[in-house]
């Protein structure tokens, strides 16, 4: 079964997935799974939540597969759906048990140096800033691909990255000085 799927082109897999073939859709996502997980983990900082978010996003992507324009790349399209899913998840955190994990991290150290670590700095960024930092510095995306993922121009992508970095700068500088 695997061998047969691997021999199919992306277009054939898309056609099969549109007819409701789950294996074909899973095969389409296979090369992008790691990137999707990284985006979700970078935004949520919790591996279980990240895996759940990617799974939810995969089902949403499948339902919306008809929206994927012919010739456009699957990766930025799918990553945008993952990012949207994570936005919902992070908003839902108000009610979520995941909060416990955050608390443990807060209380286990009274050291101020630990309090300024980059993970925490990222959590303090707005959702959109965190997303752009993750795409640029965790997925090592060029500005053009960031632009496609977010539906903006490459210039706007560059500006947003600069703004997010500016916000991180005081914290990263403190951290750099402490090392």
């Amino acid at each position, binding site marked *: 079964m695997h061998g047969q799927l691997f021999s199919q082109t992306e277009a054939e897999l898309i056609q099969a997935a*549109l007819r*409701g*073939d*789950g*294996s074909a859709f*899973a095969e389409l996502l296979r090369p992008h*799974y*790691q990137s999707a*997980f990284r985006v979700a*983990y970078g935004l949520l*900082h919790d*591996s*279980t939540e990240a*895996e759940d978010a*990617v799974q939810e996003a995969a*089902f*949403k992507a*499948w*339902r*919306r597969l*008809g*929206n994927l324009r012919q010739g456009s790349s699957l990766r930025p399209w799918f990553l945008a759906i993952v990012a*949207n*899913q994570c*936005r*919902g*998840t992070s*908003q*839902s*955190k*108000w*009610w*979520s*048990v995941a909060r416990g994990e*955050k*608390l443990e991290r*807060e*209380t286990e150290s*009274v050291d*101020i140096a630990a*309090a300024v670590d*980059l*993970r925490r700095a*990222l959590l*303090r960024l*707005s959702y959109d*800033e965190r997303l752009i930092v*993750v795409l640029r*510095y*965790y997925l*090592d995306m060029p500005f053009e691909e960031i632009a496609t993922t977010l539906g903006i121009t490459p210039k706007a992508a560059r500006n947003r990255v*600069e*703004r997010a*970095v*500016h*916000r991180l*700068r*005081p*914290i990263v500088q403190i*951290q750099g000085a402490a090392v």
Partner: protein
Amino acid sequence: MEERFLFTQVHEALDIPTPPGAYERLRMQLTKKPVRPFPWPALQTRWSKMSFRFAAGLAIIAIAVVAAAAAVAIHNSTNNSSPAGSRMSIQAYQKMVEADRPNPVNVWAACDDNVHTGCLRSGQGTIPLIQKWLDDTSRTNPPQRFVVVNQEMRRHLAQVIAALKALVADSQANDAAGMSRDYDIAAYGVNWTEMIDVAIGSYQEVAPATYAQSVLRQTQALDGCGAPCGFDSEATNCATSTGFNCSNFFSQVAVTFGGFQAGLIENAAPSSGIAQDMRLQNDLAQADGVLLAMNLDAVARNQARFNSDMAQLKRIKAQIDQDAASITG
């Protein structure tokens, strides 16, 4: 900085392997529960210029209703409040906040970010829970350390309730634009409350030097936000979305101010510095009040009021700088 340095730092901070078998679990789920793709998302509509103007007018009216409803909710809760005298202990207050959070059921997530399919159920189920929370914060006489933040919490919860009521109404009317607007208004309160709840749970009185360092760091974060966050009314345009996007401004600046307040709770002032700390907390509470209003301005795309609120926020920011400097020296 720095590109290379940041690549390394972010990778070091976040790099973890994909959980074993994660992709296979996804494959299994996709194979087990096939879905039928549909060609276009629900509720997606195309707007003519005229209908857009009409919707904008309705939006302004709806936002005015949300603001009025929030004021009424706070007023009603105030009438139930108990007289001062017996302050709650810090532990009891922490427990109350913890208990008032609804069971770990993902009520909010049911209101889908893209098509809001579960908004009606989510709103109806959530409103009574938040109302109880608001009533509890209104009835309590909080510990001195949490007096300011308790007052802010009430304002936020009241605005969330009002926005959720509007969300239910718009959901019943199948008004997708209205639902998005209500969702945006409620989301600020949810995000702020989450940030402050975590801080209340982690409250800890720290040594004078640690406290001063924490205040300095938060001040730097606020300064760092400055112009790059659009902290400049001429560059931030809510009415046309040209220049710096108003919603972006709001989310960035508001999170920075909220983060400052959370930092003052997590690394709380030593007893010797309470008076200065309370001054700073009061400044931040004032800023938060203005930001709540700016959230409504941003959603309504009311540039004139946004600019006027921005001017007020800048004055408060100057006061914050002054009061923070008296702590950091």
